[in-house]
């Protein structure tokens, strides 16, 4: 069985490696230091199971698992944690495997022998159970069976297009299967609804101007494109413009 070890602490990774060596029958195909790396490595190395710490800088283990579940053939995930009371209660409720640090060899062997794939539902419920339900740091985009992570701070806008949502960064454009309603709920403090089909990152708004046709348009930093503000959202956009911090 091919194992990917994910932990931000080197000695914690070493320990897992040694324990796996002791147990035998498992190959460590690689290591990752945070959630984003874990998602990348999983795409490259195609492991059967991930041993993944929950608390990591940047992207944490739960979010990484969320992105992984979107893969065509996701690996099994066993979480490791030192102490994470709220998450652990939710893990028990949703029958998700986890190991408590310091990790014991017999527990590790048992967890690996019955390692199974997570479902999106399990992960979402665990996330909801946390004191502050997390918003994703990245959006995962599927490219020919592979996962690409787009950091949320890089995103200029989301544009709904019949079945898909277009994710636009200064340099790239991707399609994701999500709804603007969900995205707005999750990233509402970072994005502004300007149209039934558009959410714009407030940090990238350069100005609001009137088009020759008399409607309002938003111009963006880093991209030469104007987005229409619908009549229904004009009041909301103008309210935002009045309250925006001076530095922006």
């Amino acid at each position, binding site marked *: 069985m091919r194992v990917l070890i994910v932990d*931000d*602490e*080197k*000695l*914690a990774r*070493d*320990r897992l490696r*040694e324990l796996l060596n002791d147990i035998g029958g498992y190959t460590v195909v690689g290591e990752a*230091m*945070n959630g984003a790396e874990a998602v990348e490595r999983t795409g490259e190395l195609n492991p059967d199971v991930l041993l993944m710490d929950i*608390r990591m*800088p*940047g*992207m*944490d283990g739960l*979010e990484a698992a969320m992105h992984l579940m979107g893969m065509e053939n996701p690996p099994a995930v066993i979480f490791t944690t*030192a*102490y*994470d009371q709220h998450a652990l209660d939710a893990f028990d409720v949703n029958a998700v495997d986890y190991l*408590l*640090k*310091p*990790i014991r060899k017999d527990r590790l062997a048992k967890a690996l022998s019955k390692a199974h794939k997570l479902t999106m539902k399990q992960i979402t419920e665990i996330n909801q159970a*946390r004191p*502050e339900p*997390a*918003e994703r*740091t990245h959006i995962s985009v599927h490219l020919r069976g592979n996962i690409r992570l787009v950091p*949320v*701070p890089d995103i200029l806008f989301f544009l709904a297009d019949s079945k898909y949502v277009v994710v636009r960064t200064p340099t790239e454009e991707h399609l994701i299967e999500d709804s603007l309603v969900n995205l707005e709920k999750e990233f509402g403090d970072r994005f502004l609804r300007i149209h039934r089909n558009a959410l714009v990152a407030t940090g990238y708004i350069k100005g609001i101007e009137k088009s020759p046709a008399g409607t309002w348009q938003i111009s963006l930093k880093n991209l030469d494109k104007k987005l229409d503000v619908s009549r229904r959202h004009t009041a909301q956009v103008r309210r935002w413009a009045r309250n925006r911090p001076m530095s922006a």
Partner: protein
Amino acid sequence: MEIADKTRPWIDRLKVYGRNLEQRLGRKMPSVETPPNGQSEFLPNFCAGEVVFNVVVVAEMLAIVINLIIPRNFISATPLQDLLLLSIFIQWVALAGTAVLCYTRKHLNRLPNLRALGMAYLLLLLTTFTVSECTILLLWAVGRLRTPFPEWYTSFHILNLTISAIINGLLLRLFLAKHELQSRTLSEARARLQALQSRIRPHFVFNSMNIIASLTRSAPEKAEAAIEDMADLFRMMLSQDETLVPVKNEIDVANKYLALEALRLDNRLIVNWDVGKFPRKAVMPVLTLQPLLENAIRYGIEELPAGGTIDVRLWEDNDQIHIQVSNPLPKTKSKQAKSTPGQSLGNIRQRFQSHYGEQATLTSTEDNSRFTVTVVLPTRGGNP
């Protein structure tokens, strides 16, 4: 007999309610007494088996006392029959009152304390009146009374309400006092636990143990040193809050803590020390420096994939110890960091307050993606 039949479903319902509550009590003691916001409720839980039992006992005692003082042949032929009828009536009043409070408690507890108490009291009197009225109507309905307004109608109500006012007042007072005592003990215990947990952060402890387990194989000497550091650190964490220690000792402890964190965070943690000259008598409360460093690591270094540098400056000036700890901050705050570093400083600030009163200050600033905490303490410990 009809009265008894009427009361049975009530009692059954109460029993079921009590049983459910007992189950909940057995599983999670604090959750019953305390709502999620951590504030203790004013009115106790009247559906609890213990309270219901007490109510029944007191009501029965009242029935016996009344039975002893009323003239014979006043209600019925034999004293035993008197007692039976009195018991049924009083139990009915008592249990109905308990049930009313049980169901309205949630709403009453939203009111200010005094008004909640007043409302509860009025509800009990209203219950007494209603039950008395029902009794008369029932007797009339079964043909034992010729009219729903017998000549003793007014005196019956006045008597019942007076007795009810006295007994209910006493009982409410009793239950409230007991409830207050319970919730105070509970909140004290919780505060103690919280204080201990804020000192010994479980996340740090278990991660460190995992690291030590890893080191026992690869580098036994390092593991040995780590265990020694941890022992010293724990000794400090378990010591009395009031202990004042020389500045040098505090720096030693902080270094032991940093050695452990360095094992964990590897090359992600760099600490720059800048320690000025201190008179030998300069003291500070035990574990003043370590929590500041822990804060810097938790909200700074741990959240940065590449780590960063913590700057620690200590100097003495004008009979005051100045401590300044600054750490880098992650650009986009991740989920755990949402509770900003400023919030977790509350505990530390509280400790200084209890030690020094207004003589100590703790300020924090955030600029250029660095977070800086500055603490100023009187050099000689000061007097709280």
